[in-house]
């Protein structure tokens, strides 16, 4: 029988420290749904999603009940829709509506994959899809969109960067009456991964199997609590070791739930995404882990180093715990979804520049950052370009999900409610990058040697 301390540790992780499975995401390939008639294509998509993922929610709920561990989100990711739009032509918004109907029918929280991969250039369907994003996100409820505009191997497509700055702004404007929510469902990536189960950036890559089930674990509260139990003078290698052990345990739960759900749904088990994903709930914050390591507040000098250690330790612990690790895997720093980040941004300790530095060492990028409503499209493009450059040069995934808070100024707050949280508008530099952005073209792929 188990050691009583081990048993109590597990119980307290789940019941007191918000350990949960953040998402079970079914990735579904829609390549076999492509049709030259857009209406037929939409019907096939709807039917395939409902057929394969129809039991996703009930299966996840039954596993959550069996193990007493919450499975917070159930989601679906699909093949980038630009590929289907390229075959069928026509108005891509029809696809968004078909996805939205399917998502409502099967009861999932979000469906991702209204996406285009344009890191080297635009092919059939890509431009049409990108141009339709604002309308698609405003006329649907559950659809998420992402666009990959750069990669380490291809460089950065600056024409796409320019375009995405405009689309982010338009999406916020068109949903201004709903807290600019559209922009919270739109991610611009560099080095996008094909098996990410987290929204809003999930899509099902073309190299994946027909359908797979992936899991994203969570547990910032657990890590923080474990660190809080350590002596204040514990050395950083000991702290890192403790984070590793905790990440191992968290990931094992993800592996258990994922493989069981995949078997029940008769699908292949995809990956466990090892991300520490915060929520606005008290005690579920990545910023608070950094503060527990020893910073007065997240955003202070030292934050980048603490985050680098945390991110690395989480991966080291998690990799051994799962037979298949993938996705974004690391620590997320979505500002509006993290209680500690919100406080740090309000206090002025956490600035956009510090966040940008943090993204160089952690998972993803500038995530859920609320920016002033009068920010120009060129400035948003420049923010995207900066993030993409960090990702491109460091061979890592970076992303931008900023929300221009239409009508609000620096210091005011935008509240989305639910998991998306709330956050203060962060101030940006006012100098114009318009000349550079309007040049367009491509930033060539970086040298992979002579690295200094």
């Amino acid at each position, binding site marked *: *029988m*188990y*050691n*009583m301390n*081990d*048993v*109590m540790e*597990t*119980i307290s992780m*789940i*019941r007191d420290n918000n350990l949960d499975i953040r998402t079970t995401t079914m990735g579904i390939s829609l390549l076999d749904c492509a049709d030259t008639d857009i209406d037929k294509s939409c019907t096939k998509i709807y039917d395939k999603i409902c057929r394969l993922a129809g039991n996703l929610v009930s299966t996840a709920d039954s596993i959550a*009940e*069996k*193990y*007493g*561990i919450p499975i917070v989100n159930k989601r679906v990711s699909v093949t980038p829709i630009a590929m289907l739009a390229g075959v069928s032509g026509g108005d891509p918004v029809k696809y968004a509506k078909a996805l939205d109907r399917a998502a409502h029918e099967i009861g999932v929280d979000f469906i991702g994959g209204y996406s285009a991969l344009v890191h080297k250039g635009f092919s059939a369907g890509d431009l049409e899809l990108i141009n339709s994003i604002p309308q698609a996100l405003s006329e649907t409820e559950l659809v998420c969109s992402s666009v990959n505009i750069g990669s380490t191997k291809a460089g950065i497509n600056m024409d796409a960067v320019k375009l995405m700055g405009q689309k982010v702004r338009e999406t916020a404007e068109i949903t201004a009456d709903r807290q600019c929510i559209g922009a919270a469902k739109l991610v611009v990536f560099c080095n996008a991964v094909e098996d990410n189960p987290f929204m809003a950036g999930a899509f099902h890559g073309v190299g994946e199997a027909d359908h797979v089930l992936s899991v994203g674990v969570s547990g910032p509260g657990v890590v923080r609590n474990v660190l809080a139990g350590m002596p204040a003078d514990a050395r950083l290698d000991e702290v890192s070791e403790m984070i590793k052990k905790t990440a191992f*345990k968290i990931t*094992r*739960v993800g*592996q*258990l739930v994922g493989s069981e759900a995949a078997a029940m749904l008769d699908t292949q088990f995809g990956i466990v995404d090892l991300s520490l994903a915060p929520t606005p709930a008290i005690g579920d914050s990545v910023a608070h882990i950094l503060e527990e390591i020893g910073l007065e507040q997240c955003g202070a000098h030292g934050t980048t180093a603490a985050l680098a250690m945390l991110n690395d330790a989480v991966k080291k612990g998690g990799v051994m715990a799962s037979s298949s690790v993938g996705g974004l895997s690391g620590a997320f720093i979505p500002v509006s979804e993290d209680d500690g980040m919100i406080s740090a941004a309000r206090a002025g300790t956490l600035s956009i520049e510090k966040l940008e530095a943090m993204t160089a060492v952690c998972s993803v990028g500038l995530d859920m950052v609320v920016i002033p409503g009068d920010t120009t499209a060129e400035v948003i493009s420049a923010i995207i370009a900066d993030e993409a450059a960090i990702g491109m040069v460091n061979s890592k995934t970076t992303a931008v999900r900023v929300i221009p808070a239409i009508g609000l100024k620096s210091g005011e707050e935008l509240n989305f409610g639910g998991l998306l949280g709330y956050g203060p508008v962060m101030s940006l530099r006012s100098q114009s990058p318009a000349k550079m952005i309007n040049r367009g073209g491509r930033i060539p792929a970086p040298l992979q040697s002579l690295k200094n």
Partner: protein
Amino acid sequence: MKKQENAVLTVVGKNHIGILAGVATAVAEANGNVIEVSQKVMDDFFTMNMLIDVTDLSCTIHQLEENIKASLPETEVHLMHDNIFSAMHSI
């Protein structure tokens, strides 16, 4: 034959007569089978760890936990599937 499934029950609280009896009755009523029990009483403080075969349980694990809680109002009761503990604490 069905694969055996176990659950781990922990009970912590102030000692009084009938804790074990209350648990055993609730488990039996739900068609669970007690496999192993370890309990300690220290300074009037009761702790118990019980492994239960839940393969043929007549209700859900959650329901059984609720039943045991109802019969032991002033103690802390947790019942969870064994797979979660083996995943976390054994390699």
